[in-house]
């Protein structure tokens, strides 16, 4: 009989781990709380650094898991360890007995209204990076109406003690420059500014994207954190920041302000995580055994982690971890 592996979360990490475990002859079961597989990446239009359509990747991943048992609109409501592994109860009252559990629960997007000084939810022309991506994907957003001047704010909800997120969210720098280029494609006459503190372009092709944004798209990068946003009488956005390279405070009127929201731990899994005995790390994400050789292991035997549930991660990072967790689970079962 094939051995069951319970995978909580049907995003990139969950789907890829399931794909690999299935190839190894095991029986992965995906439990996804939303109505579709794909996670956050399914809401994305194009991927950095090369503007690759996210749809291509997601469709391939969906095709890979088409023969794998999947529960949608379903959550794990209870889980207990027994002599044979784990016994999980689902919200549809079905039960699953599994040899191992993989937590692939991913992240939540930082709620931009928590940074009140940026005026999200108060001023009409302040939007989030997720909403801009939605505009690229669907072409629909009433607030984006031929803007002439556009600003991007980096590190919204990241590297910020005031919201208790001291970590870097890893993907927003590259996403900001990708979106800056894309909005120039849609509105070639627009002036695009990004407000950064450091540009963390660490991966293959990311630095090329930075150069491309400057050279081909005329994106202007201003070093300094936007500290204050207000609205003028015409409904335009007035921002204040310091140009720290120039050493002077700066004021600018914009038609659209985009907030690059960070990743936060997906808290909807907290109850199950607690039942499994997995703690959080200092950034509030799930604690893995160690960051080098035990990144997929946890303090609890038979419970594994993959993807952005342990820290902010890019899609290639997540896929890499999902594949490695499959190997870890396979080795654990054959011990």
């Amino acid at each position: 009989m094939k051995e069951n592996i319970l995978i909580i979360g049907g995003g990139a990490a969950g789907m890829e781990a399931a794909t690999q475990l299935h190839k190894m002859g095991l029986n992965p079961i995906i439990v996804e709380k939303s109505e579709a597989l794909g996670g956050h990446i399914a809401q994305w239009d194009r991927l950095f650094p090369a503007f690759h359509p996210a749809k291509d990747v997601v469709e391939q991943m969906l095709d890979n898991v088409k023969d794998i048992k999947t529960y949608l609109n379903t959550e794990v409501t209870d889980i207990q360890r027994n002599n044979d592994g784990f016994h999980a109860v689902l919200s549809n009252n079905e039960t699953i007995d599994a040899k191992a559990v993989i937590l692939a629960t991913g992240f939540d997007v930082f709620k931009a209204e928590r940074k009140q000084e940026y005026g999200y939810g108060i001023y009409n022309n302040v939007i989030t990076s997720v909403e801009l991506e939605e505009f690229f994907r669907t072409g629909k957003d009433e607030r984006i109406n031929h803007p002439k001047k556009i600003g991007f704010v980096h590190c919204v909800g990241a590297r910020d003690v005031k919201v208790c997120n001291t970590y870097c969210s890893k993907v927003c720098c590259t996403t900001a420059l990708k979106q800056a280029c894309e909005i120039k494609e849609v509105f070639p006459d627009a002036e695009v500014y990004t407000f950064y503190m450091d540009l963390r372009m660490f991966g293959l092709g990311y630095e090329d994207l930075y150069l491309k944004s400057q050279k081909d798209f005329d994106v202007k990068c201003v070093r300094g954190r936007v500290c204050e946003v207000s609205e003028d009488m015409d409904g335009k956005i007035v921002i204040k920041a310091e140009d720290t390279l120039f050493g002077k405070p700066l004021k600018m009127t914009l038609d659209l302000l985009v907030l690059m929201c960070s990743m936060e731990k997906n808290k909807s899994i907290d109850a199950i995580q607690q039942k499994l005995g997995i703690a959080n790390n200092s950034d509030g994400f799930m604690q893995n055994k160690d960051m080098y050789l035990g990144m997929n292991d946890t303090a609890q035997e038979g419970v594994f982690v993959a993807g952005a549930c342990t820290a902010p991660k890019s899609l290639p990072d997540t896929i890499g971890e999902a594949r490695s967790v499959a190997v870890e689970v396979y080795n654990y079962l054959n011990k």
Partner: protein
Amino acid sequence: MDFGFCLSPSSHVKMDNVDLTTFNRLKETNPDINTCIACGSCTATCTAGHFTEMSFRRLLLMLQRGKEDEAKKMIQRCMLCGKCTLVCSRGINIRKILLDITR
């Protein structure tokens, strides 16, 4: 009558009123002008910069922040030795841009 106090002028850069004519003219013939990452190599190697306020990366910012007069004053310190062009990690032809500014 002098009461011993006055209003200080705002030091804010008002980006809405900045005249970018010179910078945009330079950009047409020197598209690499946009690619500066403010590493400061140009200023660190600059002989004039060791004795004066000359700094090419700052000069570029001045042109983009409406301080063209200050920029033109600064440029007089340059001796056109071209060391900045040799060290620029983005490969910007700084010497040519400096010449073009005064044209």
